[in-house]
């Protein structure tokens, strides 16, 4: 304890003593400081005096930044009374990972003591214009990385690159306690929520790290199905989200019938979620945006990572190519087709239950069934710095699922007759996505930046089903029935985009053009008899969209900012011009407080009208709005929010109101969750209003990460054909939704737990039966559609992991438990009604069938990394 005299002690050791004595946050470069030895006596009365004494003669000094003291080389700090710059200036540069050299997209750059700042582009580059002349230093921060600050002394027009060090990297026992944003980060005055990719691993409770499951912990985001890899953002359907991976869209976003998302966490560099009013360069969807930027790979050395868990295995390889290129290849495949783990089986059971619950009369007692299933995904990305100003990224993605099942169901006559019905079913299906994105970023003179991209995305589904029924009496065949169905569904999306960013007085201007070509093909071949000719139907529709977009932002008084944008699209399929104005006003009087007010329109013309359900012989089906029979989805959203930082705490609150026109629903699905035909029978259209509040409280301190996300969402749908026009909530609406996530890392251990409590899902209640007194027939009466709520949902998960390090390799072992309290959470309720009354009964027999979410499920985590 202080006072204490140190003699030839490494400065880093002295700093540890100071940190403990003052309970202060100190940030320093341990590698640079460790060799420096200090001989000094420190009093322990005043931290700044002790730091001054310690650093005397070391070429290092300190500067306070927020609640942290940065220990930095003397040259980066501008001394008091230093020369004041003559005029404002522009700084450009790149932000990179110090170890791998990878550029870091969407990193934050801020001028200390000012609300002025920017974020890096997808290639890690930035330009900050009109920097005030009295600027002290520029700081770069990135989720999961240590912040870095640099002096801007005596600069007029220069390039400044930042190299950030990742937290909890390969090196164990990190000593530096510094400004690290972890877990999630509120960016752009609350308009964007960023997620640290490492968080996905920390929150692994269900077999594999999963992007969508982590996103579901954010306020305002929920899953349509409690656990599934599906995102409903502020009342919009999940097909209304724009999911972008390196410039191309991903249409079918999950594996294994919705259990896992298709986006491999090992290939992810950056995750951004836009729930509110976003820039006009994003379009084509009426809900939120999930923008994922893939990793470009290590530019300095080869890295091999291998992972194995109870669901599958993965491998990723990163390699530098020359001095300016890198290649990343990641492959993930489930081993479910040859290793049937308990976790996989319980997930598969759930898929079966979910599917069979759709048909109240379906008999689950399958006598023989032999399902075989696997999924895979492959990501490849190469990144090349063609020059100091140009970067070319090429990203390829392919992911798919394959399922085959042969089953034989045998039914015996209920009256004891020797009659026997045998039903042979064969399912053979595969579906998946392919995507290719080519992105060219170019830094130009005077802070201008050009972005050119070409994106191709394909979703395809092929489904083959055969059913043979054989009816026997005393072993003699009475009748045979045969039917087969082949469904082939393909959606292709090709887009070209060019946009340029210009510095203009008091802000920036972005102007861009996008061409998007959509092509949808559908084929169906049916045979009702093995000897008959097949019936063949096919159709292809195509839509071409030309879009111009522009956004201008202003900043004045260093505290007010206004962004106004417009997206205008000419669609040749509907022959319509779509205008989507968007605006956001923000006020940031100080660095730790901001408010925002905004609104915008969002239009979508490609709609998913059927969701994949294997057992209902149904793939995803996308169709194009024709503007009449199938209207466009049009959303207006207005938001009002604030963001505050207080010490280790961050508060974010946003109220929103949405009006969604052209919502599409299937009436039958609401009540019985049954299928509907591809001719779109049963589709009804209406309007929705959604209003709510999203609140986020986040705490980060020395290895502790805590966030509390709460959302209140009121959802009102009005469809003429449903409930006689009376309002009802969305199928996935949960008015109160509370999520608490806590992670703590200590040395090589990582502990995480999450807790979810929300209102129950809405369902359609069966009120009772009545009898026709004339005929004795019984009738069933349901209440209004979706007018009742299932019990509240509650879930508690925990996971603990430990990493072991050997020179250049790392082994992570862990254990996770999903739904620790084994709470029976109900996703949906349907009813089975017997066709006739049982003998002697006064009433019909009604069976209530609840589809329960996953019960207590332990799982094991194993990951090996070699560098």
């Amino acid at each position, binding site marked *: 304890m202080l006072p204490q005299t140190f003699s030839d002690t490494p400065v880093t050791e002295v700093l540890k003593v100071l940190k403990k004595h003052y309970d202060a946050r100190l940030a320093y470069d341990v590698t640079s400081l460790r060799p420096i030895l200090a001989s000094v006596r420190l009093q322990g009365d005043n931290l700044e005096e002790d730091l001054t004494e310690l650093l005397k003669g070391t070429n290092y000094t300190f500067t306070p930044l927020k609640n942290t003291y940065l220990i930095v080389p003397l040259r980066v700090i501008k001394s008091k009374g230093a020369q004041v710059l003559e005029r404002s200036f522009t700084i450009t540069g790149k932000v990179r990972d110090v170890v791998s050299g990878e550029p870091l997209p969407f990193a934050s750059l801020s001028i200390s003591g000012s609300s002025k700042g920017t974020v890096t582009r997808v290639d890690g580059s930035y330009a900050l214009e009109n920097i005030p002349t009295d600027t002290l230093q520029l700081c770069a921060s990135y989720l999961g990385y240590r912040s870095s600050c640099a002096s801007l002394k005596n600069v007029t027009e220069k390039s400044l690159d930042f190299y950030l060090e990742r937290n909890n990297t390969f090196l164990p026992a990190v000593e530096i306690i510094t400004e690290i944003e972890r877990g999630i980060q509120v960016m752009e005055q609350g308009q964007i929520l960023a997620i640290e990719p490492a968080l996905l691993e920390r929150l692994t409770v269900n077999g594999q790290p999963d992007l969508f499951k982590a996103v579901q912990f954010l306020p305002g985001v929920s899953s349509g199905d409690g656990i599934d890899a599906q995102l409903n953002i502020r009342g919009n359907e999940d097909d209304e989200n724009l999911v972008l991976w390196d410039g191309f869209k991903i249409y079918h976003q999950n594996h294994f019938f919705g259990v896992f998302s298709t986006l491999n966490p090992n290939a992810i560099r950056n995750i951004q979620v836009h729930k509110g009013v976003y820039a006009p360069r994003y379009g084509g969807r009426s809900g939120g945006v999930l923008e994922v930027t893939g990793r470009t790979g290590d530019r300095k050395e080869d890295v091999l990572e291998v992972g194995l868990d109870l669901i599958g295995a993965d491998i990723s390889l990163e390699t530098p190519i020359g001095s300016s290129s890198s290649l990343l290849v990641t492959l993930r495949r489930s081993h479910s087709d040859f290793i049937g783990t308990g976790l996989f089986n319980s997930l598969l059971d759930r898929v079966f239950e979910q599917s069979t619950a759709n048909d109240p009369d379906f008999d689950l007692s399958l006598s023989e069934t032999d399902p075989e299933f696997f999924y895979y995904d492959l990501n490849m990305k190469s990144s090349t710095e063609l020059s100091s100003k140009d970067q070319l990224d090429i990203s390829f993605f392919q992911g798919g699922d394959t399922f085959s099942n042969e089953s034989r169901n045998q039914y015996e006559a209920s009256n004891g007759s020797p009659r026997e019905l045998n039903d042979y079913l064969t399912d053979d299906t595969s579906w998946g996505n392919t995507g290719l994105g080519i992105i060219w970023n170019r830094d130009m003179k005077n802070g201008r930046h050009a972005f050119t991209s070409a994106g191709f995305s394909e979703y395809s589904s092929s489904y083959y089903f055969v059913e043979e029924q054989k009816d026997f009496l005393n072993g003699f065949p009475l009748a045979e029935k045969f039917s087969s169905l082949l469904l082939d569904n393909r959606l292709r999306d090709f887009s070209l985009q060019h946009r340029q960013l210009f510095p203009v007085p008091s802000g920036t201007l972005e102007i861009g053009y996008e061409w998007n070509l959509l092509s949808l093909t559908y084929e169906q071949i049916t045979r009702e008899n093995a000897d008959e000719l097949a019936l063949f139907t096919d159709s292809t529709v195509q839509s071409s969209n030309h879009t111009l977009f522009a956004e201008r932002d202003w900043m004045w008084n260093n505290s007010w900012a206004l962004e106004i944008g417009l997206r205008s699209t000419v669609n040749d399929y509907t022959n319509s011009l779509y205008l989507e104005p968007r605006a956001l006003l923000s006020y940031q009087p100080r660095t730790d407080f901001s408010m925002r007010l905004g609104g915008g329109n969002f239009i979508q013309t490609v709609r998913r009208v059927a969701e994949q359900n294997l057992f209902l012989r149904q793939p995803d089906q996308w169709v194009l709005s024709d503007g009449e029979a199938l209207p466009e989805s049009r959303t207006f959203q207005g938001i009002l929010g604030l963001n505050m930082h207080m010490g280790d705490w961050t508060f974010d609150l946003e109220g929103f109101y949405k009006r969604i026109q052209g919502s599409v629903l299937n009436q039958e699905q609401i009540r019985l969750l049954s299928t509907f035909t591809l001719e779109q029978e049963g589709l009804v259209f209406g309007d929705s209003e959604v209003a709510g509040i999203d609140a986020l409280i986040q705490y980060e301190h020395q290895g502790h990460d805590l966030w509390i996300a709460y959302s209140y969402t*009121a959802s009102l749908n009005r469809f003429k054909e449903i409930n006689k026009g009376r309002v009802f909530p969305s199928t996935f609406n949960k008015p109160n939704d509370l999520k608490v996530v806590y992670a703590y890392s200590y040395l090589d251990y990582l502990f995480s737990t999450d807790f979810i409590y929300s209102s129950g899902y809405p369902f359609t209640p069966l009120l009772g039966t009545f009898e026709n007194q004339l005929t004795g027939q019984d009738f069933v009466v349901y209440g209004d559609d979706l007018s009742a709520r299932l019990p509240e949902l509650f879930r508690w998960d925990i996971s603990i992991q430990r990493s072991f390090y050997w020179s250049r390799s790392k082994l992570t072992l862990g254990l996770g438990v999903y739904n620790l309290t084994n709470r029976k959470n109900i996703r949906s309720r349907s009813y089975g009604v017997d066709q006739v009354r049982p003998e002697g009964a006064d009433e019909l027999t009604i069976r209530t069938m609840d589809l329960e979410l996953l019960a207590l499920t332990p799982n094991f985590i194993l990951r090996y990394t070699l560098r």
Partner: protein
Amino acid sequence: MNRFLLIRIPLVMLVLALSMVSCVKQIPVAEQASDVVVVNAFIETGRTADDIFLSSLDSGQGMSGISDARVTLRSEGAFISLDEDPARPGHYRDLEGIFLKPNTSYDLEILLDGERFTSQTITPPSLLELNVSKQYLEVEQDNDLVFLEWEGLNSGSFNEFFYLVTMRPLALLSELEEIQRSPQENELMVINVTYNPELVLSTDFFRYYGNHLIEIKAIRLEHEELFRAQMDVSGNGASNIEGAVGFFVGTSTLATVIEVR
């Protein structure tokens, strides 16, 4: 910015955000089974309105009758008030003895606790004559059949009416003797819907020995869906009562007795 503003601004924002939410009305909670009124109102030409049954839904305890309703039939400016049978709660009947007319439009109005339920039906013309080939069926005789033929109402190629044929034993269940045969799912009462004024009955229609009442009811085609559905699992469509569920149907009836021996 001072600390006071820092506290006040979030509060103002919170109030504004909450007001956004409150702009959207809350969805009413689901109605309960007890809130749903079931109406069984079948009226016959040439008879008085002798039994209109109001009840709650059966949610496990049976359909209990609803008392203290005002039940009125209106037609051509006149109205018939129905009174509740004190011995049978929920059953309303005409004590004035007014016979209902064929080919006539009747409006039903039920007032209950300030709520009003209405419906309308048009009685069919009267069925005039029923011919039966014989008055009995013999179980032991193979393929024993009875031919029913009545003077129908449909004319030309377009059906305006259909016929509901019901068979029920004329004895208490405890007194009935079951026909011994291989198990089959015959119910106590068999319903048959036909569009032609004829029907053939065999012993397969019957489960018990003894006399059975055979009723043929002519019903207008617009009410067909109320009878064709075995049960309603896809919505509350099997009802023609505004504000409630159930039936208000005018019929024209002929009846005979067939013995199964």
